[in-house]
């Protein structure tokens, strides 16, 4: 008979993509983990209610009941996080991390329970699932950190880093524009500024400075090309 808290039964032993950047990649695993934890908690709670009536057991049963409610919310939160937007907000991700922490606490309690009551025949049947519980703890940890990382990246992306161009690069492109013929100066300065702005959003300051240096290096060639084009135009007019 399959134990009621078998991690493998719910398919959570797949690779959990510990470096998952997007929360969508770990969504199925959150579902699996919460399902397994809810089922496991429900089974144990039933078992405790039917069996021992000592205060410790009652306390544990109450704790499990609380965790069960919290874990049910994991599914609700997870569904909420997935449905309205492709990238959940950091707050939503934090909430999921919070509930996963509950899942970890629950798994730890179940594990402790298995250990301390391993001589109880009612519990012995479930003791074999202890390694699965440990794996669940480990996976919950990895999920929590993957979600936190994903949420952090999402926050950075969504917030849209304030685009600030390197002051050195700006000076370099203004210098490059100054080398050009007066008639073309403002046009190219605008063009260079626009390109630097685009680069600033995705490149380091060093890359921006290199961009400025390359523009400055080729400004004399550009000047020659512009002067030649201007001469050709004047010749045609004559």
């Amino acid at each position, binding site marked *: 008979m399959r134990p009621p808290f078998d991690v493998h039964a719910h398919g959570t032993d797949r690779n959990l993509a510990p470096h998952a950047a997007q929360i969508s990649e770990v969504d199925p695993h959150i579902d699996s983990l919460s399902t397994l934890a809810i089922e496991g908690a429900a089974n144990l709670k039933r078992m405790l209610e039917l069996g021992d009536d000592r205060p410790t057991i009652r306390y544990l049963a109450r704790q499990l009941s609380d965790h069960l409610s919290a874990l049910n919310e994991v599914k609700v939160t997870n569904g909420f996080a997935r449905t309205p937007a492709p990238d959940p907000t950091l707050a939503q991700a934090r909430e999921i991390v919070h509930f996963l922490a509950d899942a970890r606490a629950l798994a730890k309690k179940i594990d402790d329970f298995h250990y301390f009551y391993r001589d109880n025949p009612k519990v012995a049947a479930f003791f074999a699932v202890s390694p699965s519980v440990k794996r669940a703890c480990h996976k919950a940890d990895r999920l929590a950190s993957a979600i936190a990382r994903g949420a952090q990246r999402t926050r950075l992306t969504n917030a849209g880093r304030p*685009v600030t161009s390197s002051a050195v690069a700006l000076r370099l492109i203004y210098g490059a524009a100054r080398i050009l013929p007066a008639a073309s100066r403002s*046009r*190219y300065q*605008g*063009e260079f*500024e*626009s*390109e630097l*702005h*685009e*680069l600033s959003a995705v490149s380091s300051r060093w890359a921006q400075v*290199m*961009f*400025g*240096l*390359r*523009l400055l290096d*080729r400004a004399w*060639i*550009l000047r*020659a*090309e*512009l002067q*030649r*084009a201007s001469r*050709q*135009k004047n010749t045609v007019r004559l």
Partner: protein
Amino acid sequence: MTLQTQLVLRALLEHPTSELYGLQISQAAGLATGTIHPILARFEGLGWLESRWEQIDPIIEGRPRRRYYRLSPDGAAKARHALETARTPLARLLPGLTFDGGPR
């Protein structure tokens, strides 16, 4: 015709009807940013290229206007001819490339 010039022409010919701005052309040509303006200026001077400012409000968009380039109708034909008759064709410099940019 230099290799850089041929790469820029090839990049422009890959999108003959599209408007591209400087960084996109650099990327398509596989050249470092900030190196293609003299080439673009030469072709613009020859009438092969047309350019225009992007029609946006920089304040609303939160970024400066881009300068878009596009091959002129006869510029595309001239560019193709120039690439075909280049003394050191791109295909010889970069084996495995066909004229239209696809793998041979």
